[in-house]
């Protein structure tokens, strides 16, 4: 019988389809700038 169940969230219950393609197409500096703009847009 199962006594406990553990799931790896990122690979199992939800997928992150954008992360790797995004990283491969834009540079780190651009990504950081874009993230910061998105985070502080108000």
């Amino acid at each position, binding site marked *: 019988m199962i006594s406990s169940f553990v*799931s790896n969230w990122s690979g199992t219950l939800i997928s992150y389809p954008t992360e790797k393609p995004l990283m491969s197409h834009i540079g780190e500096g651009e990504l950081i700038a874009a993230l910061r703009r998105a985070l502080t847009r108000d």
Partner: protein
Amino acid sequence: MYRAFNEGVLRYVPLDVVERRVREYAESEETQAEINEPLLRHLADAKKKHGFPAAILSASSRLGIELALQKMGYGKLFDKVVGNDFRETPQGCRFDLRIRERDRTRHLGKLIGDFGAKLETTALMDSRQDLLAIVGYPILSPYAYADSDERMRSELGRQRDHRELVFAEEPSDYERRGPFIVGDSLDFQAILEELAGEPSA
């Protein structure tokens, strides 16, 4: 990348602003659509019926996971979500990378120990073969193909031909038998029912 994220993105941004953004992301239609609701539903049914504790171990944001689950109506499904937290510092918010991918074996062992459970009677759903190999009931993530390299895809593809459900009597059996394969959510339901009804390994 995490250092760049902390220094370049989060620096001087207040914690409440970051948490608001995490909530927006977790509750967004796009994110909710990515969550595999049938897997959660089958886990909730099996957990209610058989009473085992369930947990999530993740190197991503604990808050994001909990908010996404709450929005989906499964806020109480997991007894514990182990992940990373944002925290306030004099220089603004930081993402505390306490759970790292490379330390997952140690964290997994600690998490199972916290429940008073044993590796031999733990079901783990994951796509990493080295982690699946240490539990009694390894379940291959339905998303394993998407984030695997060519070699692993080939290996998993070979195992996937073995459709019958087999039960590991001890962790070392993984080498010979491989993990339980989840083809769709009904497979997951069947696997959970079979495992929960099996005599203790």
